[in-house]
């Protein structure tokens, strides 16, 4: 697992937090990296966070996801919305 800038790899999980976001990158062929990314995804989901799989090049396409998908290019996790 590495934590680098977004442009360095295609598969990245960004979990928004007080540091901006925690980024976890993985190579789909690397089982350890996939397992680490999946564990982070599952932990964030367990806290109630929402996950969106989005287009690598921007937000043209995207969808809500419930399960970690190692083939997803970019996953962004955000906190539950609250009405003000």
């Amino acid at each position: 697992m590495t934590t680098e800038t977004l442009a360095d790899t295609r598969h990245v999980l960004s979990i928004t937090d007080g540091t901006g976001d925690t980024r976890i990158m993985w190579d789909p062929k690397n089982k350890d990296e996939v397992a680490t990314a999946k564990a982070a995804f599952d932990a964030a989901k367990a806290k109630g966070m929402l996950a969106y799989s989005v287009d690598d090049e921007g937000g043209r396409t995207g969808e809500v996801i419930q399960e970690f998908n190692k083939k997803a290019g970019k996953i962004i996790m955000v906190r539950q919305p609250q009405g003000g």
Partner: protein
Amino acid sequence: MATVWPTSADDRVWSLWASGTTSTTTTSLVWNNWIGTSTVTNSTNTTYLTTADTIWGLWQTGPITPAPYRTPEEIQADADAAQARREEDSRRRLAAQQVRAQAEERATELLHALLTEEEMRYYLEHDEIQVRSQHGNLYVIEKRGVHGNIRQVDEHGCRLGRICVAPKMYDEERRVLPVQDGWIGQYLMLKHDEDLIIGRGNWSQRAECKHPNVPILERAAA
């Protein structure tokens, strides 16, 4: 005959002033308390007094504990310690500001990476984010906090309403998320999870299109 033992100078003087005025109490009794006698007796009470100096002293300063003597070296050491604390506070504040700036920079980078070219153009031109939602509605995320900063607009840009809804802005370590993370959440939800965010939001400033008869030029041009 009752005997009143003074509990404090305040109590004694107050009781004489406020409630000790029996038929035989005179102003001289109050005066005596001020100037001090050892005992004052009337038909109701015998009141034991301390001296005027004691009463005055209690009112003015209370018990006096003399300050311990401190050498010039000790005084200087205290001043140095206070200065060191101030410097440490400044360093801590500066470090927190740097961490915050880095978090905002990181969140801004993530936000920019999300926007399409068209959205980025609008963003740079208007300093707000225009989003075509999952169900085809048009929203604008205003860059001013995350409370009440989303407005629904029509194709003319007329405001149809304002929504107050945002992701929780604290993480598990009770750190405040950068505001850009709030906009990211709003953007993603409007784009891919519209029912959820609209369902949780509170609406205000509902309005109708002000130019219903004006043709939509962008659509005509397309």
